[in-house]
């Protein structure tokens, strides 16, 4: 990373006796698009509001562009923000909403108009400039909020679940649009979401949060392919989570012995170990002696792939989930009750010390 644009150090926040943020350290580079991802109530919004200064942190410090902002009121910081509700001023037109912050700058009328027109073009709202927010669709309102937040050319753009109120199609379209605008302007952006697909497709880096702490920071590829903790592993994408015992450099799960290519530090002999593998990483053959014996319990057609639930008594009670590409599945004549063999490649197994959730 080059010079970090935003630095958070030891951010804690309590509401009364409840600690919602339990020490957050984070650096964000200039022009980065970062997603805060995590389950509901984990503190994403609280962290975003602390960065904005809307809910001051209980302890910890923040720097933005080399300036300490820890105690500054929001109006003295440099950010634009879009809320889930958009918070558009209903009695002002689209033009007036976008120009809201510009007017206060005592700019010349012509200058304001030029800037608003430019922003309206950016978010494709030129035809709607004279309308009131209530006369726009949800997606259009969202763009107004975005344009308003960008009007003062802030160094930092904060988005709190900006797409969650929209239907799937509009959402997909706006994802791409927000990302392209962000790239064009090069504005450092933090987006809060609890939609992992949104985070995976949009973010340069994902900050995965759980219960007031950062669980993992990394590119979408990293958090998906190399989850650092069982929580990340289970939260992002589908994951088979198996519990076993570490013995003689192997993980013993049920009656099977699994050999992983990569072994974490700190695994003692006879220690509990959690073994994770993605459904699409599991191989499946109809017969043969190698692999784990299993019976297909059910099939789901999921469009681009086929999802199987396979009972493998020697591994554990609950079915193992396996995703197969259609061309692989076609040659196998799969059906419920069919006997098969599962292959768990060692380079795809991820091991974590301790027992994951029961």
């Amino acid at each position: 990373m080059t010079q970090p644009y935003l630095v958070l150090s030891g951010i804690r926040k309590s509401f009364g006796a409840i600690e919602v943020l339990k020490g957050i350290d984070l650096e964000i580079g200039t022009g980065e698009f970062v997603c805060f991802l995590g389950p509901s109530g984990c503190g994403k919004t609280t962290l975003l509001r602390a960065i904005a200064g809307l809910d001051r942190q209980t302890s910890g410090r923040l720097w933005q562009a080399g300036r300490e902002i820890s105690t500054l009121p929001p109006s003295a910081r440099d950010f634009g923000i879009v809320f889930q509700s958009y918070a558009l001023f209903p009695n002002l037109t689209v033009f007036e909403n976008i120009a809201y912050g510009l007017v206060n700058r005592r700019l010349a009328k012509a200058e304001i108009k030029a800037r608003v027109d430019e922003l309206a073009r950016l978010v494709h709202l030129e035809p709607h400039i004279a309308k009131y927010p209530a006369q726009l669709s949800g997606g259009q309102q969202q763009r107004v909020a975005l344009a308003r937040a960008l009007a003062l050319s802030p160094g930092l753009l904060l988005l709190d679940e900006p797409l969650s109120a929209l239907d799937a199609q509009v959402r997909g379209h706006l994802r791409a649009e927000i990302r392209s605008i962000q790239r064009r302007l090069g504005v450092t952006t933090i987006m809060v979401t609890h939609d992992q697909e949104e985070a995976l497709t949009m973010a340069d880096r994902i900050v995965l949060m759980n219960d007031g702490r950062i669980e993992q920071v990394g590119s979408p590829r990293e958090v998906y392919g190399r989850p650092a903790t069982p929580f990340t592993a289970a939260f992002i994408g589908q994951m088979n989570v198996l519990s076993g015992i570490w013995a003689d450099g192997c993980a013993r799960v049920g009656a099977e012995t699994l050999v992983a290519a990569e072994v974490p530090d700190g695994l003692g002999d006879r220690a509990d170990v959690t073994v994770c593998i993605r459904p699409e990483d599991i191989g499946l053959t109809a017969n043969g002696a190698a692999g784990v014996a299993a019976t297909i319990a059910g099939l789901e057609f999921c469009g681009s792939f086929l999802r199987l639930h396979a009972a493998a008594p020697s591994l554990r009670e609950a079915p193992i989930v396996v995703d197969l590409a259609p061309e692989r599945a076609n040659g196998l004549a799969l059906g419920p009750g069919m006997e098969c063999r599962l292959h768990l490649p060692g380079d795809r197994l991820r091991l974590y010390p301790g027992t994951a959730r029961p």
Partner: protein
Amino acid sequence: MTEIPMGTLGAIERPRRAVDVERLVHTLATVAGALILLVIIVLPLAAVFVKAFQARDGSFAGLANFTAYFGNPALFRSVWNSVWVAGLATVITVGLAFVFAYGLTRTRMRGKTLLQLVAISPLLTPSMLPAISLVYLFGNQGVIKDWLMGQSIYGPIGLVAGLVYYCFPHALMILVTALTLADQRLYEAAEALGTRPARIFRTVTLPGIRFGLIGAAAVTFTLAITDFGVAKVVGGRFNVLATDVYKQVVGQNNFSMGAVVGLVLLIPAILSFAVTRAAERRQRAALTARAVLFAPQPASFRDTVFLVACGLIAVVLAVMLGMSAYASLVKLWPYDLSLSLISYDFAEHDADGWSSVWNSLILGGGAAAVGTVLVFVVAYLVEKGQGPRGLREAIRVVALLPMAVPGLVLGIAYVFFFNQPANPLNGLVGGMAILIINTVAHFYTVAHLTAQTALKQIDGEFEAVSASLRVPQYKTMLRVTVPLCLPTLISIFGYMFANALTTASALIFLYGPDTKVASVAVIAMDDAGNVGPAAAMAMVIVYCAVAVRLITAGLNHLVAGRLQRWRQR
């Protein structure tokens, strides 16, 4: 993570602002708001408590005043008198209001709009007006005096009748709300099970509105027991608490005893306040978000029965208003019934003539202007401000207080508090300012709750957006919040204005030689035996109150048109 992140830190760091100016301004404004409420509500009430424990000379008297009060059979009898009269008025009012509310909400009877208008008309009359009408109807020279079969209207009969008129719309509004908030699905379920109507009424309707009934009864009882106007005009020699306070404070200058009676009067008011708040909370919780609002089916027999019943009630209400209107236009009741405006020539009957009407309008306009601004700004600071949280909570609580304080008690509270020579605001006594302040305090709670509700409905992130765009919060308040709240502001203005015109209970203690208001003039002229002019003055109040309501309704209509423009697709 490195402790100090960047080497360039010192170089680029801009000078940090020592204080957050906006937050400081908010804090100061919140403190100012709290101080104002302290002076106009809390301290005067505290003065009543202090006074009740003081002897006439101001020395500490312990419980002596209370023992003297409860030891005096004449005074103590008033407690019982007040309780049973108010109780009887409550039973009758709630019963009639229930029938009326049921007709309005649960039937398809015709003429609902007209009936509703007539039903709420008492809200625009001073409480002396029904009493004056009763005198014309049943008094010594009354039109239908015989209907009383020899009983006198002066006393409990007149009191109960006048109170029922005066309290009816208050009970009605609460019951209409309760009956409107019924869940249609419960009725459909009951009917699907083949339940008989009487049983549905007993098992679905009544339980559904029991909190509404409790609330209506509590409000009515408080209004009835603390009302001054009806008791003053038709109370006769039948003593009640409200007139006792007046006699002690104004008649005998016995402030301490007045304070004791005031405290006694505060008990039912505070109890009923607590009951109403609890009932409101339960009522709201009872209706889930997914409930379907009840829509009555036509049923000709039921609709006719309710039309007749509600029609009768409306006729009685209209007659009560009409009697004063008519009597005020008669030359010399009952000898010369020709029409004339002679009663409206107030200068002939009262030293202050028409000036008390102008005073009322100044008071109404002043209280409405001052009250609307104060209430809105304080409510804004509480709901959207950055002032200290504890202080904002405290203001919320204090703002609820006036609802539990009868006007009469607030009136003597002001006398006790502002009349002290040591009080720096002593100079206000006798002037218009103190009447305005008192009226604002008197009607503060409803106005505050109205403003609070409107502010809560506005997106809570506007202030955050405005800060991020570096627009000072006050500008966003003026440019966005106030326009969105305009209908609410107009309602508060109309509410304050109309109530300032009709109320007398607090003002009777506070007016000065140059500030007699119309409602006080009604009482004064009635006292002097000029019942015709008193009726005329009461009617002038009604006409003014109607005008205020029409004007504010018109304004609201204009504003609603503009709001519509923001909303239409």
